[in-house]
């Protein structure tokens, strides 16, 4: 029924999505299809440290973003159990979410985000998130959302390959990434040095750089961040 609305809009567009405005209009039509009011496409922004995000496109009003803040968005992504492609979408009630502060809950509800769905998009080798929200509980159709999820993935992947936007999500150099990969496989500094044919000091400095770029406390956290963002 609603798919018809989406289809008729899509026939206007030919070729892949290359501009942000096209991405925004696609997100708006997905919103209409799943009965959501607001959308937001975000990247977890590892280069700006933990708890920060980069918004790709969104139709949240400025005040809502200002009041809720990027820390709030980051905690939705981290703790809101985002569903991957094909998984059954899970509704998130901001009012009862244990990971949001009282102020954050109030900001969401005040600006008409009574129900949220956070979907994990894996496109172009990187992870990004689509957050859909509606004013009241159970407005959003979870079955339509599963389809809408794939469309978002397609669109984001086309947009990324057109703009190269996903590059900035991977702040690591090739060598740093390689070092982290071997460390995640349980290799010690000396072993990595042997594998890559460089000195142990060099390996340590690559890893220290990576830790610094991620704003991590230690190696374990850097590895976890890299795995979460799909870098290794």
């Amino acid at each position, binding site marked *: 029924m609603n798919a018809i609305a989406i289809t008729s809009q899509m026939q206007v567009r030919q070729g892949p999505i290359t501009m942000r405005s096209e991405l925004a209009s696609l997100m708006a039509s997905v919103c209409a299809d799943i009965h959501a009011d607001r959308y937001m496409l975000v990247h977890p922004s590892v280069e700006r440290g933990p708890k920060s995000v980069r918004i790709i496109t969104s139709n949240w009003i400025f005040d809502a973003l200002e009041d809720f803040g990027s820390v709030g968005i980051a905690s939705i992504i981290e703790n809101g159990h985002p569903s991957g492609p094909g998984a059954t979408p899970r509704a998130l009630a901001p009012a009862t979410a244990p990971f949001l502060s009282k102020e954050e809950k109030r900001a969401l509800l005040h600006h008409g985000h009574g129900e949220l769905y956070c979907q994990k998009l894996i496109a172009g080798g990187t992870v990004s998130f689509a957050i859909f929200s509606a004013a009241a509980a*159970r407005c959003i159709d979870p079955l339509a959302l599963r389809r809408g999820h794939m469309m978002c993935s397609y669109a984001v992947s086309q947009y990324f390959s057109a703009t190269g936007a996903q590059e900035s999500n991977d702040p690591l150099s090739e060598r740093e990434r390689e070092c982290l990969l071997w460390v995640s496989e349980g290799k010690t500094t000396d072993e990595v040095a042997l594998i890559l044919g460089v000195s142990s000091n060099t390996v340590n400095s690559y890893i220290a750089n990576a830790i610094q770029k991620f704003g991590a406390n230690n190696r374990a956290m850097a590895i976890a961040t890299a795995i979460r963002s799909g870098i290794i």
Partner: protein
Amino acid sequence: MLHDMTAPVEAEILGDEAVAAWAAPLTVEPEIEEISSLSDAVRLCLRISGLLRADAFSLFFIVSQGDAARLAPVFDTSYPGISSLSRMLSARDTERFALSACKSDQPVWWGGRDGRDFLSASALPWAAEVASPIEQAGIAFPVSQERGRTGLVVFSGSAMNVDETHLCEAHSRCFSLFAHVARQRVQDCAKKPNVSKRELECLRLTADGLTSDDIATSLGLSVHTANQYLTNSTQKLNAVNRIHAVAKAMRSGLID
């Protein structure tokens, strides 16, 4: 990350009524497809195949070998046998097809010998056209398990008809199907490590950058106990050190 958020706060913000509405279970349950065996998976794949009006399907694992990629068939229309579709696509000369299909996140399609266009205008921008690897027209959906295996679900037929809605629906179902199949394979190969809740908690905190001291403080344990939990989980996961254990636990989905 613990907030003392209790019911009164929610009621204060939302009103009692809205809190009560949320406490009730969700009435509209999305269809849950239970897969307990490979034949269940085959049955589900047959249903997706019906959605696309395809005659044949085949599910592959992608095995990458350096710069090359190979398709390893898991099951297909002739389950428990192997169909000609699987045989043709896993042959050596289709390596280029395998590479182009697994490079993308989006479906790839081909028109077959008679070059028939079976995608609707709305679906066309979402899928990339590739050179026909086989005689019949078909479409391939790249799928992956989060931090895990990647695969390809291929459908082919002479009477296929796919619009945008069906394309997304089919791809989404392929993803969930593949997740089940890949998980089952892992469980078949190695029994799920018996890591306790407490041990997982310690691993999770380690992933968040906490040291043993921090973990002991936040969980109210002694440092020795926290270390013991981490050592145990490292052994159970068959890892060589803590970082390896964290990486293994994350990749197998034990922790987020």
